């Protein structure tokens, strides 16, 4: 089982020793400029490929079966680092649409059923928590997530949640 952990802060990744871990805190990701080259000119290839590693992370994300996303919640949305990465995920998708679980989504270039676990931290309001859950659900289905879980906690509780989830990838 291929596991990827994408976090915007340092975490105790020894709980998942075989996972690929990206700490976005230390990675510069350029924002998507919406050129659409990755769809209609050079399919699957971003113009920033040689500039940063967003495409590498997104490729790993697409190929993984178990995805952990750890991000601060701001306005109910992901914080900038993960949102930038997600916006840059366009090369992962075909421009064509399909109906999946009753809703319409773009077709991923590679279909790997996965479980997505979103851990949002910070001090979100009730409404922000609801927004975060809705976005997580949407993006999970985008990635062909068969199952998704959302955990919302304080910054200091992230490792506790990961410990509780430890072993999930050894099944």
């Amino acid at each position, binding site marked *: 089982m291929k596991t990827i952990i994408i976090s915007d802060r340092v975490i105790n990744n020894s709980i998942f020793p075989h996972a690929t871990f990206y700490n976005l805190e230390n990675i510069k990701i350029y924002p998507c400029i919406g050129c659409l080259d990755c769809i209609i000119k050079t399919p699957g290839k971003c113009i920033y490929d040689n500039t940063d590693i967003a495409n590498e992370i997104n490729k790993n994300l697409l190929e993984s079966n178990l995805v952990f996303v750890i991000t601060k919640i*701001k306005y109910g949305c992901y914080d900038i680092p993960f949102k930038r990465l997600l916006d840059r995920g366009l090369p992962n998708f075909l421009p064509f649409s399909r109906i999946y679980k009753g809703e319409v989504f773009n077709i991923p270039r590679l279909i790997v059923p996965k479980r997505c676990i979103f851990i949002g931290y910070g001090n979100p309001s009730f409404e922000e928590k609801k927004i975060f859950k809705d976005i997580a659900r949407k993006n999970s289905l985008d990635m062909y997530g068969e199952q998704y879980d959302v955990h919302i906690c304080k910054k200091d509780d992230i490792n506790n949640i990961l410990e509780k989830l430890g072993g999930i990838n050894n099944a």
Partner: protein
Amino acid sequence: MPKILLLNANPCGNNSNSGIFLSYFKIFVEDANFKCHNEILNSNNHEEIIEKIFNVDKVVIAFTTYAGSVPSTLLELFYDLEAYKESHIGLFPNVYAIIDSDFFDKRDNDISTRILKRACKSIGFDYGFTLKIASSSLVINSPFKLQVIKLIEKMELMVYLGLCNTNLFTKIPIPNWLLIKLLNRYWLKLGIQNGLKKKDMYTFPLT
């Protein structure tokens, strides 16, 4: 004369559907005697845009949903606005939005609206309402464009009168299966225009 800022927050800039929708809005707004400013948001002009935002009465933000919500570039602007607001003395503008998406329901538009509302609340702006346009790429290239233009005209009137809490929504009124077919054909045509064959568009692995 009231001042209004039309902010294109679509990362594609002027070559985007948001740019087209704003250009229609501009026509109506100029007829209504607003003093109109236009800006295109990018990562390097936040300071300039923030200054303009705090010098107008109303702001209309237009963008396409990215990964199901607000583009990261716009989120960054909100972070900067929130940091700047402490030093601002004076009135805050009312904010409205034109949010378009390629899908044929307004789910992504709704999520983006909720994020905008939260952001505006944190900054201290009054949020008016959203014009939500689904299946925008198709709408803009079809006779249903007139339907959108009418709604944009209605939106302009509502912005002028300061009305709020009334969301406007439009999409192509055809069945979903047909919409998927047309949308897929639209993208295929764009690919072919750029020298691709259908099989090229399915390229994998990503490199």
